[in-house]
């Protein structure tokens, strides 16, 4: 290193600082080239009409076009349902292997399988559910032959809202388990003992202390689950072939130019999606930081 008259200081005007940022520049360059700019490009193009002029028309369509609005609503509904359902189910599962006191080996298995399940999403998951609850699926057959219940005549359809939600749950609740298990570990045993010592029943302990402490974590993770479901594409596509018009599928259809030659409308839909995802993710991050502050 060249000898300088002045020692390196933390002064941001010092040219040495610029050299420091050089170290992370490949990362930033990568991010700009392949994440930030492509996304920005789409978002900018959302404001262009078919002749390339600036317009709000595409964005306006998000609120006016009934197909698009119903697409968003459908995605929001599925995401909310699977976030809530996956959240609750995942919470109880995480509870059972932490505070619930099941053997350590069971916890380890649950964690591994949760990692597997959340990675299994996409085409194989869709096929697995078809084999389970499709018209000739295993469970469908068992219910029909053993219990005499034909779920399909009763109105169930795997390729519908209910079916997709059920399928999404397969990767939603494992995500909840993986995040909540450490959070439940952080519940100190002494809190329960102190509460009991002061006269509280188990229920009162949960109601006044444990649940309030866990709520930011639980809610935050549900936000994450929401975002997770909202942005999912592959599973739905493989399962329903595009027949269920959730927003991701609708987006693909729009941009791939099947219907109208207005890819900008698709880009506008992407903008809407990004905003919803961002709100959800920010909710998750904010709530996580709140819970960390309390559990210091």
């Amino acid at each position, binding site marked *: 290193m060249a000898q300088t008259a002045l020692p390196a200081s933390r002064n941001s005007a010092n040219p040495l600082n610029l050299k420091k940022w050089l170290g992370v520049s490949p990362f930033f360059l990568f991010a700009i080239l392949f994440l930030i700019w492509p996304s920005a490009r789409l978002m900018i193009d959302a404001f262009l009409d078919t002749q390339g002029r600036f317009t709000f028309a595409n964005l306006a369509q998000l609120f006016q076009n009934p197909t698009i609005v119903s697409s968003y609503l459908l995605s929001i509904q599925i995401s909310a349902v699977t976030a809530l359902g996956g959240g609750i189910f995942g919470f109880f599962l995480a509870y059972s292997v932490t505070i619930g006191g099941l053997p350590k080996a069971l916890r380890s298995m649950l964690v591994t399988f949760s990692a597997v399940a959340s990675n299994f999403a996409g085409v194989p998951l869709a096929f697995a559910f078809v084999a389970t609850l499709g018209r000739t699926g295993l469970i469908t057959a068992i219910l029909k032959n053993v219990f005499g219940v034909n779920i399909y005549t009763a109105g169930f359809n795997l390729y519908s809202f209910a079916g997709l939600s059920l399928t999404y749950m397969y990767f939603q609740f494992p995500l909840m388990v993986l995040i909540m298990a450490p959070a439940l570990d952080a519940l100190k045993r002494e809190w329960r003992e102190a509460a009991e*010592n002061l006269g509280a029943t188990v229920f009162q302990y949960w109601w006044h202390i444990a649940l309030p402490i866990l709520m930011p974590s639980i809610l935050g993770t549900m936000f994450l689950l929401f975002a997770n479901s909202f942005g999912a594409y592959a599973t739905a596509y493989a399962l329903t072939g595009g027949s269920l018009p959730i927003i991701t599928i609708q987006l693909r259809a729009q941009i791939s130019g099947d219907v109208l030659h207005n890819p900008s409308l698709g880009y506008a839909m992407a903008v809407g999606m990004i905003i919803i995802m961002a709100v959800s993710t920010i909710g998750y991050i904010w709530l996580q930081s709140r819970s960390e502050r309390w559990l210091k």
Partner: protein
Amino acid sequence: MAYLSLSNISKQFADAVVVQDFNLDIAKGEFVSFLGPSGCGKTTTLRMVAGFETPSTGNITLDGANITDKAPNQRNVGMIFQAYALFPNMTVSQNIGFGLRIRKEPESAVKERIAEMLSLIHLEKHADKYPYQLSGGQQQRVALARALANRPQVLLLDEPLSALDAKIRVSLRSEIRAIQKKLGITAIFVTHDQEEALSISDRIVVMYEGKVEQVGTPFEIYNFPKTAFVANFVGTLNTAEAEMVDPAKGVIKMDGVQFESANQVEGQKKGDKVAIAIRPERFSFASEQKKANIVDCKIENITFLGSVVRIQITIGNTKFNMDTFNNPFLELPKIGDKSQVTCSREAVLILDRQ
């Protein structure tokens, strides 16, 4: 009848017996410490009183009522934990008022009691703060107030000072003792720090490997330890192997040096090997005053500890520590000198063989 009575208590986990033959009667308003190293069973015993562990055998009686099988939220005991255990989602006031609100006391009474407790621990200005905004010492005081707000019959403290800085430890332990005296509440204090136990207890129960070694006042425990463990654990101590010469007169020989002891242990015969112990502060230089035992020694090392000067001497072949008060005008011998030290017959303790 004693206010709090533990009779024939024992606790077994799987294949390990953690507490055995524990018998203790505690009077109302008494401050008792359970003192011992990690794993001696003191915390387990405390938790049995609190109801978090069930005794394998024995009974616990509080104010005449047998509470052995009562659930922890049915006993009226207050517990203070080492890790404070304040509820992080509640303010100081809410923490303190928790027990009362669970009991559905009228809100005005609750508010009054909270104010009373806050002034007791001198944290009135922090009523609306959350635990993460408080220091360790403050949190522990809030924990104390929270337990006391419920008007418990017994206060149980599980190493409450271990997680705190040294200075806070000293001031907080006096504060705890002062509050306990003022309220006249019975208390059991678990600690591994003998200085803590000695300074604030009415009585100390020294425990080791699940058994009670000795029960007594701090004075008794320190000056008249009954077993080698108690002697070693509480305060510094010199120990040595010696041989019994004359059991009737209490004459023993260590490394050819003769000592006379006023303490006798039954069943000793001439020729038996015994363990003797002498507290460092019981030695003095023979040139100053002569007591019953006068022995030759050699000065090995001198360490200046402030108010105390610790001199390492060799008597016979054994090293002993001798503590003497600092006196700027006293001329101390030099290292390597030969000298004479003296101690009384009562100072030579003969310990139970383990």
